């Protein structure tokens, strides 16, 4: 495990030197800082009396602070979920291709590391990166909005963790694809395709009637049954963040399917890695 964690730590160290990752951190910090200075919320006895952004009144009606903040937390959850996964696919697409690039992989494989440790370490490194990134984004917004509104909740942070779990499954497929084709563009394309198809798969029951009954519908249902239900988890994350009721057994099944998909892809990647010559 020590070697696996050393690989993950090196990946994180390398990631922190990258402009994209640094830019995301700076952007989140800047938005939080500007909002922190520009947003004013007047809360009286648990009711949000007025909201001002850059001095302009945003809301006139008086309502409970919690009721007013729920849609905001919901929007933040959606932005972090879809924005975070989209950014992760782009920013992390070349980790696999870099790792397996000629001249680097031979060097890494000549070190006292097992191949599976290298792959698992990379996966853990990217998972940690996405988790820390989403926690930083969600944590910063949650603390800011909680301080301003007086509504303290951890739900948006839990929603961000769901985003991270979803990304980790997609990244499993991206990493496996890099072992077949050592290309960042292909990995990004695989990630992007899974992201979009995963959104479609989340609405498969609603979309299935659009296909004629028969082979086309059967094929659609079969293909989408294999994909992670990205949009279902996104909706659950947003509902969770906004204190709406969440069907926990259904969410649990979606998460199980998601992780089975990610680990399955990783297993295929390991199989390919073990038999491949570099």
């Amino acid at each position, binding site marked *: 495990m*020590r*070697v696996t964690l*050393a*690989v993950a*730590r*090196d990946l994180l*160290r*390398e990631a922190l*030197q*990258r402009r994209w990752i640094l830019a995301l951190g700076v952007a989140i910090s800047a938005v939080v800082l500007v909002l922190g200075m520009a947003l004013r919320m007047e809360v009286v006895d648990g009711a949000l009396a007025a909201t001002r952004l850059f001095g302009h009144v945003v809301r006139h009606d008086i309502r409970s602070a919690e009721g007013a903040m729920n849609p905001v937390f919901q929007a933040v959850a959606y932005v972090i979920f879809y924005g975070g996964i989209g950014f992760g696919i782009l920013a992390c697409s070349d980790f696999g291709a*870099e790792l397996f*690039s*000629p*001249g*680097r*992989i*031979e*060097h*890494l*494989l*000549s*070190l*006292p*590391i*097992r191949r599976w440790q290298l792959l698992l370490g990379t996966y853990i490194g990217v998972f940690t990166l996405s988790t820390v990134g989403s926690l930083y984004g969600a944590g910063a917004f949650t603390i800011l909005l909680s301080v301003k509104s007086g509504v303290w909740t951890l739900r948006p942070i839990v929603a961000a963790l769901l985003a991270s779990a979803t990304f980790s499954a997609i990244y499993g497929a991206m990493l496996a694809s890099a072992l077949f084709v050592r290309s960042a563009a292909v990995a990004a394309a695989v990630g992007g395709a899974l992201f979009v198809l995963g959104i479609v798969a989340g609405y498969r029951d609603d979309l299935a009637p659009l296909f004629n009954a028969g082979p086309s519908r059967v094929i659609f249902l079969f293909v989408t049954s294999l994909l992670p239900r990205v949009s279902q988890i996104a909706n659950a994350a947003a509902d969770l963040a906004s204190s709406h009721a969440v069907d926990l057994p259904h969410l649990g099944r979606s998460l199980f399917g998601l992780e089975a998909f990610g680990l399955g892809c990783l297993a295929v990647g390991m199989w390919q890695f073990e038999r491949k*010559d*570099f």
Partner: protein
Amino acid sequence: MTSATMAIEVSGLEKSYAGLFGAPQVALRGVELSVPRATAFGLIGQNGAGKTTFLKTLLGVVRPSKGRVRVLDGDPEEPAVRRRIGYLPERLHLPAALAGVAFLASVARLKGLRLPPRALRESAHRVGLSSDADRVIGTYSKGMKQRLALAAALLGEPDLLVLDEPTDGVDPLGRADIRGILAEERARGATIFLNSHLLSETERICDRIGVLARGKLVREGPLGELVGEADAYRCRFVLPAPAAALVTLGFDASDEAGTFRLRAGTPEELNFRLDAARGAGALLVDLRRDARDLEEVLAAAMQAAS
């Protein structure tokens, strides 16, 4: 020799790559090789001869299709064996975002070495990167990257150094530095396995040579044996040289006018013969060992192989 005295033992090694369409591509065909410990072995051959594939099989990066590879008395895929190997790949791709010293720290960690920052800086200093150790690798020249990779290969005083074109992109003075470092490593007892297109470099560093042609090891042995007899000399005399007298004294005429070949087992015998030649009126202007260079050895081996 027993296996414990061998750094590398390869028997019946074959490697073929499956072709997408058509016949598989054969890279190595039944290679047999034993490299004793504490020697410097140079592998030479033309492009596509299978040298890099062979090197990679020594590291477990490429798996043999057939045959057996033992390195430092173990399986090259075993982490315990790899811990004792330092490798410098031909096509270098180092993480551009890391500083040189951070890269060394990463390699040390993955090798399971606990080296203090001072030791890492000393490693960088040894390869001539002391003032650039904190710069990110992305700003390094090709030669600097090569030096850094060599420093990484040397971490932990490995028993076997596998170097694929170690001086590629390095300036002439840098090459001399690297030769010096490799000489120090040999003096320490390390085995060096070198693959280089620079035959003069190989000749200077290695004491055993192997010639690989079309995936087969066609020549292998001590350098002196391959390049010529240790007791053979080439003498050039002022023209006109007394050829008949020289032939009587044991000199063999060569194609070049005034140049003769001579075999002498000891310095005493050599000087005795030269004194006799001078006594016969021949005036010596040049004396050198009658040896071929590696280029000629390679050309002859290739010709024989074809």
